[in-house]
């Protein structure tokens, strides 16, 4: 009888390794992503989801406009902020302590060959995860990312090569929002916010657990948490 069939989650054939690498410099994380992307393209590794936290850095996407960096290079340097041009989509953004940066290295051929669906999927993961901490976040038409009435709480920028993704998202957990003063985030004159600013005391680890679970659900991946295993490259 069908009623005896155990309810199962649809189509879990794909796995995804998840690691939280903690504090990693932007350049180093960028090189790490490159390596993972190449290995993913060759089919040597499964999908990867890497969480990091960057030291203060301002990065500029491929479509970035220099005028959206409000501070001069000297000012940034004096404030201890690195600057990188990079190959993700989107304009300028800031990363720093208190932010969860997630880099999914996914082969979209194993999911949907649809870059917009992919970005909407990441938004969904973030919205659902924030919901678990009592924060009601939404999409805003025409402004990729995740928003609350108080401002943008997560930014998204993605690069795709042969359907393999890199870069990803940055979620403000308890980021010092003052650092955003140096830029016009994503070229939009809109405020930014963080989970802490919205009254949540969630710890980074708790948020990562929620993100992992929602990634698995939204992208139909079985999540294999490898946090304690070193990354073999």
């Amino acid at each position, binding site marked *: 009888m*069908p*009623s005896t*069939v*155990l*309810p*199962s*989650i*649809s*189509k879990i054939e794909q796995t995804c390794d998840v690691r939280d690498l903690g504090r990693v410099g932007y350049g180093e994380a960028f090189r790490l992503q490159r390596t993972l992307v190449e290995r993913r393209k060759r089919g040597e590794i499964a999908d990867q989801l890497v969480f990091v936290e960057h030291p203060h850095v301002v990065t500029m*996407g*491929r*479509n970035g406009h220099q005028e959206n960096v409000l501070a001069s290079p000297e000012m940034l340097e004096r404030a201890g902020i690195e600057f990188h041009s990079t*190959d*993700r*989509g*989107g304009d300028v953004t800031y990363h720093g302590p208190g932010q969860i940066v997630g880099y999914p290295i996914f082969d979209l*051929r194993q999911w*949907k*060959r*649809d*870059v*917009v*669906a*992919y*970005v909407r999927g990441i938004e*969904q993961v973030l*919205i*659902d995860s924030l919901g678990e901490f009592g924060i009601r976040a*939404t*999409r805003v038409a025409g402004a*990729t*990312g995740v928003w609350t009435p108080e401002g943008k709480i997560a930014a*998204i*920028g*993605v*690069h*795709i*090569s*042969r*359907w393999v993704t890199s870069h990803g998202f940055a979620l403000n957990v308890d980021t010092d929002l003052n650092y955003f003063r140096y830029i016009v985030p994503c070229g939009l004159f809109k405020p930014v916010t963080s989970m802490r600013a919205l009254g949540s005391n969630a710890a980074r680890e708790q948020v990562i657990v929620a993100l992992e679970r929602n990634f698995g659900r939204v992208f139909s991946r079985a999540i294999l948490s490898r946090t304690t295993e070193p990354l073999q490259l």
Partner: protein
Amino acid sequence: MIDVVMPQMGESIVEGTLTKWLKKPGDHVERDEPLFEISTDKVDTEIPSPAAGTLNEIVVEEGKTVGINTVVGRISDGASSGAAAPAVQESAPAPAPAPAPASQAPPPPAPQAAPEPVATVVEETAGPLSPLVRKMARENDIDLAKVKGTGAGGRITKQDLEAYMAARLQPPAPQAPPPVAAPPPQPPPQQMVPAQQPVYIPQPATAAPQTAPQTAPQTAMTYGEMPGVRVEPMSIMRQKIAEHMVFSKRTSAHVTTVHKVDMTRIAKLREKLKGQFQAQYGTSLTFLPFVLRAATAALRQYPIVNASVDGTNIIYHRDINIGIAVALENGLIVPVIRNADEKNVVGLQRAIADLAARARSRQLRPDEVQGGTFSITNFGSFGSVFATPVINQPQVAILGVGSVEKEPVVVDDAIAIRSMCYLALTFDHRLIDGALADQFTGKVKSVLESWAEEVL
């Protein structure tokens, strides 16, 4: 000479911005070597070259946004013989082994045969195809060479396929289509497709890019000139509903079963608690949350009613997410109550009130109308006794709730006045058989008739 086109990086995408050429005119490029980069919605994508050769010409400059399949550059294939076909050819299969990996003909197997992300050469059968079109063609056994594309650059769109399939139903079928039984003698059950109009219109294969490919089929070209009619374009929502309904009717084998349910217990309970409920929660207490609660109990017992069909696989959903059809002024929307089985009657009633109110004020978030695994429609609130609802794809069943009315009923050989209600379950006979559908509806009925909870 090989045309390099703006690729389509997803079904909903109609254009892309060329952000960077990675090669200059005159540069040699290997096949699959990154040639240029495009940007769509915060995603930058490297596009590999469709062929080896020399980048001859850059047609679209950096920073320009163009429609998909627009030619952005040309590669001269100096090395190989000059067999390259000219631009768009009609149906003739490409003579030479095409340089691109794109497999265009519609071979039923090879589900993964879709081309690399990207630049496709325009000398194929009918331009690049979206995954959706490919899938539809495969599932409906359509020879794509016979379909006329009306999209940008003669590309075959979903509408073209639908039109083709509709047209195929009209004349004596050229050959027995594959679906199970032979075509029945009567006309096919799909009245939805207007019978008389010429459904697909061959158009001269002019290169007409830029414009959005999703134009409505040009059918009622004469109505506008007729006296006594007024022509009004459908709203986007109307179009979506129309599309969804016909799609559903074509996808699922709809069967409706109707059970008569004695709601007297619930009517009494509701009568007793109504005032208090209104005072406490600021919303009235209806029959709907009771039906919802009974349905979640039945869904848990019969998970196949909470499933979907994917090809020849059955997808069982872990979560019970129930869509509630909400009538709008000029349409209909189905917001979803997630994990409905985890809510009690109070929670369900409040969720219904909240979603309905925000649906009417158009304040639903996109994720609130997605992910449903089963639906309920409450046509009883408009006085209908029973109806045969259409399944909300990709679900496999929908429960329709008729109006609750007092009727004379025979109880223990005496005539009694009871509050009766018809529950109509429309189910997809591909997956669910009548016996199971009735067990399911019977379970809903028994929960409602023997409602035990005094506390909501």
